[in-house]
């Protein structure tokens, strides 16, 4: 056996608390270690070359990379082995950054820990066997959940790429929240027109099935071959989809849960969305006094919404501008904590609104008290240190985005995760922002955190593109980590059958043992853990590997 150990400095990340040079020196004494080196950045091109050159020069058949956590750069290092015709499953990643150098500051202790982690990798890797990635047939079809701008843009893209699309929308109409907007900033287009354009284009295509007033009720299967059950007004429908784009949008914040805002108790207190709906029906005196409040349902720990909703500063500016345009003699005062007019052109829009005469006061309004002669705002002008009580004819609350009401249900059906604010969680915020942890399931639009219309459309397209990339060949490779049953040990108790979420375990009535359907197995390992006779093991993760890795951690050195 010829093992190569490569230890990364990760710049200063690992090097500053782990003696990397000492480690590479130490492992050279093991007879099965052919080469042991350390390098500033193994993920850099010269770092990668060092590994491939060593494989070639020494004919390595095991590669150990001690660096960041395996979730990062997973495929990158595997590809280095592939390039040199070494089976990529003979690679062992050891996390000495997240699990070691980032945890403590003690150089000696950290080096000792890193030593044991690498040793455990070395012992474990000795049992590795070459594995073949599984080729599976995939359906060139997609399930898109949510018919708002994001879902529509994903559906359109996929349909144009010749994929069969099933679009499921909970409400009777497509278009989501954008349909309600009278003028979408910055294009000033009517939201309903934007939707109509997309909807007409989608409806004209013959590879799209649209289910409105419908919802997903069941979801099973595996990447490339998911089966979705949809409850539609015309009865239950079952469809096969290679993958999913989740674009179920958001819930507008309901200010009723903040009693000091007085929302719902007086018609003169409205939200930005109410204002859109009212449109021309809005009746105010000739010279109205109007207050616009920012950050309603955003940046507020008291109600579990600590995040910035990103869209509401622009919405507040739009509301102020609309009042000012309709009532040129109005007094419009906008109350903000911080102005975050962040999208392109946002700051200029802020400036324009100021020029139009809208006044901006840095205050987070404490109480809104409806009195017969006007709605009274209690607050403090924090730039003047002045506490005030001011009366207005109309108060507009610029509401933020809350997570979609059904996010929990969808998450549990699809077995994907939510973040702390109950938006869908991406696989990696920077490297895999559209993926979920489940292969073939993508998220798009504001269901993964507040986004404006433009971002939601791009997000929808990006997720669709990634899904298309997974499915366009009609087949795909999946990890070879599947369960295998030793029929000699199997007692036929069928407990594994209960544990299996992928329904991959089948019972043979004649032989009274179970076997695993390879195509269906997700390699989650639940059956292995359940089996009372240790008859099931996971290819590439056998008990001897784990046993030897543990002994390495405990071994006297």
């Amino acid at each position, binding site marked *: 056996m010829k093992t190569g150990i490569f230890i990364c400095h990760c710049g200063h990340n690992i090097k500053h608390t782990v003696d990397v040079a000492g480690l590479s020196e130490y492992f050279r004494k093991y007879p099965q270690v052919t080469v042991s080196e350390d390098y500033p950045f193994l993920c850099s091109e010269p770092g990668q070359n060092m590994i491939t050159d060593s494989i070639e020069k020494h004919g390595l058949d095991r590669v150990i990379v001690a660096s960041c956590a395996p979730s990062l750069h997973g495929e990158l290092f595997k590809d280095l082995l592939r390039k040199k015709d070494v089976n990529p499953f003979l690679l062992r990643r050891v996390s000495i950054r997240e699990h070691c150098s980032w945890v403590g500051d003690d150089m000696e202790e950290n080096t000792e820990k890193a030593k044991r982690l690498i040793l455990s990798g070395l012992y474990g890797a000795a049992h590795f066997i070459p594995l073949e990635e599984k080729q599976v047939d995939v359906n060139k079809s997609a399930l898109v959940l949510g018919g708002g701008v994001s879902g529509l843009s994903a559906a359109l893209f996929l349909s144009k790429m010749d994929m069969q699309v099933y679009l499921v929308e909970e409400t009777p109409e497509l278009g989501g929240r954008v349909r309600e907007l009278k003028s979408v900033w910055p294009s000033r287009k009517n939201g309903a027109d934007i939707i109509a354009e997309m909807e007409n284009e989608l409806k004209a295509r013959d590879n799209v099935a649209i289910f409105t007033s419908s919802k997903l009720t069941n979801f099973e299967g595996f990447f490339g071959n998911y089966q979705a059950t949809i409850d539609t007004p015309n009865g239950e429908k079952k469809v096969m989809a290679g993958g999913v784009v989740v674009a179920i949008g958001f819930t507008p914040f309901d200010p009723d849960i903040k*009693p*000091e805002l*007085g929302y719902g108790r007086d018609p003169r207190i409205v939200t930005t969305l109410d204002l859109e709906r009212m449109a021309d029906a809005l009746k105010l005196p000739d010279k109205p006094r109007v207050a616009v409040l920012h*950050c309603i349902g955003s*940046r*507020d*720990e*008291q109600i579990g919404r600590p995040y910035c909703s990103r869209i509401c500063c622009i919405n507040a500016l739009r509301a102020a501008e609309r009042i000012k345009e309709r009532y040129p003699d109005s007094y419009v005062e906008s109350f903000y*904590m*911080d102005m975050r007019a962040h999208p392109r052109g946002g700051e200029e829009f802020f400036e324009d609104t100021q020029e139009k005469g809208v006044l901006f006061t*840095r*205050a*987070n*309004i*404490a*109480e809104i*008290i*409806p*009195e017969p002669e006007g709605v009274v705002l*209690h*607050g*403090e*002008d*924090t730039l003047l*240190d*002045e*506490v*005030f009580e001011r009366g207005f004819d109309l108060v507009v609350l610029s509401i933020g985005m809350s997570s979609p009401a059904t996010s929990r249900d969808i998450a549990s059906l699809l077995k994907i995760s939510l973040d702390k604010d109950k938006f869908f969680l991406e696989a990696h915020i920077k490297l895999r922002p559209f993926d979920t942890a489940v292969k073939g399931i993508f998220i798009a639009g504001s269901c993964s955190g507040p986004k404006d219309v433009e971002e939601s459309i791009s997000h929808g397209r990006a997720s669709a593109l990634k899904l298309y990339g997974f499915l366009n060949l009609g087949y795909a490779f999946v990890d070879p980590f599947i369960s295998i049953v030793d029929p000699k040990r199997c007692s036929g108790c069928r407990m594994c059958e209960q544990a299996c979420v992928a329904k991959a375990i089948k019972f043979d009535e004649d032989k009274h043992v179970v076997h695993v359907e390879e195509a269906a197995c997700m390699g989650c390992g639940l059956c292995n853990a359940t089996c009372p006779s240790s008859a099931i093991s996971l290819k590439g993760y056998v008990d001897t590997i784990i046993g030897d890795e543990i002994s390495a951690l405990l071994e006297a050195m």
Partner: protein
Amino acid sequence: MPEQTATRVLTCIQCGKCTGGCPESGKTPFNVRMLMRKTQFKSNIEESLPWYCTSCGACTIRCPRDVKPSEVVIELRSKLVEDGEIPVTIQKALENTFVQKNPWGRSRNKRADWLRKLDFEVPHVSETESKRLLFVCCIQAYDPRCMVIPVNVARLLKTGGIEFGVLGEEEACCGNEIRRIGESGLFEELQEENLGTFTEYGVQEIIALSPHCMNALKKEYGDTGIEVVHYTEVLAKMVEGGALKFPGSFEKKVVYHDPCFLGKQSGIFDEPRSILKAVPGLELLEFSRAREMSLCCEGGGGRMFFEVESVYQRNAEVRVIDAGKRGAQVIAAACPFCVMTLEDPATEKGLIVKELSEILMEVI
């Protein structure tokens, strides 16, 4: 300052939500947002400032960064207490509480005197089957104006057929105001003494008369396993279930004032109102600043024990004028401190202040 409090102060975004709803900011030199700013920079804070806070809790309930400004004020006071830089009357209240277990310094063995005004015997809590304790509170055990409240509530509970007992002289101050003055050491002593007594007699449930005591017993005594309720919660249930009936009538317009510790800090808004609505003849009015927006009477946070330096219009007076404008004849409250602060300006303006139980005594 505890590390966690200091860390939260650093997250303050100076939005002014605290100041905007503060019953003291604006009219006095007290600006709660500025105190947070100065605390962030460890700047000098003028020593009279922290004493303006009434502990109404509005800032802490609403702060978008959960900085808990009213708790920070307690820490600022705590430093002043430690350094002995505190108003003389506060000093006196602390000493009294240490010696006699009540801030007024009345003799501890007179704590159960109110019981003499009853025409029936109230057992010691240890002799009750339910182990349900009526916790009297210092002001209601000693103050001549407030002494009637425990008497009334005891009668109402008996009429409704609810068993309860008392601790008599064994009851010590709950420490709610003491903690807010910044004497956490003394608060812990009181807590320990009371908890020891509760455990000794196997107390299962506490009916608190003052919302201030309820707050300390329920939220600041740790996980005691004892259920703590305010007496209006018990009475409201009795009225609803028909156990308490009001044969008389009270033909007056009554406006209800939400006490901070009962209302905005504990969410008990509907119980006192449902009791008042059940009183025949009574017309219930509302302030526009009601429920979560109720204007603090300025009786809490140790403010019962000293006068602040600057001269300004009292909230109690604002409240009484507002009540008058609404055509109210009576202001009802369910807190002894509110009753005490509201009564002066009310008497001046010809309005009557009644503790909720006083109204009920006229109709049973």
